[in-house]
């Protein structure tokens, strides 16, 4: 089993969620993250002085899936989440050793 961690634009969340649903991926966890990188956040003006964030607010989706689905999910997120501008984010894949579904106690493959 693998865990896919995708850091995406907040504005692309709905597109990615819907694209994943179309390929049957309905389970994931979502977190707010602050993305630091070369691209800075927007600069605002308040009372004549500049106010810049050095990060961009982003969303991290965690999706645990069986090995065979990884490629499809990655491609789906890539396509749905892309704008082509700096700041589109990244996808990371990890190996997962074990999974448990708390409700039933099912383990590993059955639990995904």
């Amino acid at each position, binding site marked *: 089993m693998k865990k896919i961690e995708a850091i995406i634009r907040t504005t692309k969340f709905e597109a990615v969620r819907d694209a994943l649903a179309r390929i049957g991926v309905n389970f994931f966890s979502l977190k707010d993250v602050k993305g630091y990188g070369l691209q800075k956040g927007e600069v605002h*003006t308040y009372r004549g*002085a500049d106010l810049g964030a050095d990060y961009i607010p982003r969303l991290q989706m965690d999706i645990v899936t069986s090995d065979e689905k990884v490629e499809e999910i990655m491609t789906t997120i890539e396509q749905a989440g892309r704008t082509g501008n700096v700041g589109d984010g990244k996808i990371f894949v990890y190996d997962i050793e074990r999974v448990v579904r708390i409700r039933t106690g099912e383990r590993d493959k059955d639990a995904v």
Partner: protein
Amino acid sequence: MNEALFTANNLWILVATILVFIMHLGFASLESGFVRRKNTVNILFKNSMIIAIGLLTYFICGFNLMYPGETATGFFGFAGFGLSLPDGDAGGIAYADGAYAYYTDFIFQAMFAATGATIVSGAVAERIKLNSFLVFTIIFVALIYPIAGMWKWGGGWLDARGFYDFAGSTLVHSVGGWGALACIMVLGPRKGKYTSKGIQAIPGHSMPLATLGVFLLWFGWFGFNGGSVLSADPMGVSLVFVTTSLAAAGGAVGAFFTSYAMFKSHDLSMVLNGILGGLVGITAGADLMSPMASIIIGLIAGIIIPLSVVFFDRTLKLDDPVGATSVHLVCGIWGTLAVGIFGSMAGGGQFITQLIGVLAYGVFTFVLSYLLITVIKAAMGVRVTEEEEIKGLDLAEHDMEAYTM
């Protein structure tokens, strides 16, 4: 003078007292909206104590310093500690020719007094030590404000010279503003305001609170200016209501256009400051102006606001989180001078007199405030530690947070 008219007149001054009282909530809201979340309790605490301190010190000595009666010379007088109600009608219908009673006079003036210190409170926010601020406040409202006020309203030398300040563009607002200026010069800017990367904006944490504050201040200003008619005279009070309201409206419009021209966005905080600027601007001559003149005075005040805020922030590098210096000091000066330009007293001679008043109050208040805050700095320190500033004054001084989940 009949009893009914006395009752109606006195009633208006009492209602005006209540209105000036609620300005303290206005200041508390405005200032807390314009600071960061982590310093909110501190601002609220300071404003809760200021009104208490203002009332008590005005009872102890302020009232009799500001209105020393027969003990007055041109610059100073003192009619003794505490209050002493004149016997019988002398404290009632005969006290002010049927306009208000003795205790009414005291409580109305006492509410005014505390506003001066409140002005300082906003400018020094987010970095001053609580106890140092409270000591400053006590001396400022107990001594500096009433002694200065006496020069005009207590029948002192500026009154004799023909200086005019109807409800306190100078006596209240500029005086508070000069105190604020002295304090922020000694205190220095908030950490993170002027950095190697340039001047950083530090946005206020709640625009609803700030807006609430400005509306409450405008609300209270009907009592501040309207009550300064010192009777319920229908012609006088109604004119003051019209000029006060139109100047505030003018201030909003002036700040709307100027700030948009300068920043290419509609900065709410500037429009809010613009309204206050208009109100401060009309205060010196609210009973002298035509409706049209009051619109112009307000408009100019509104135009001044963003220019002045940027001037203090960028040019002078004086850090004033709420814009108190621009609103109260700069527009207070503008309003005082406007008495020489517009309205029924306008004229070159009057303008000079107004200028003399502005300078006299400036020098006196600024120098004393500067000395006072410098002495406090030496004696007990004025600034919280850098660590406390980062953590926020709410946790550092009050061990609590303004909001919890």
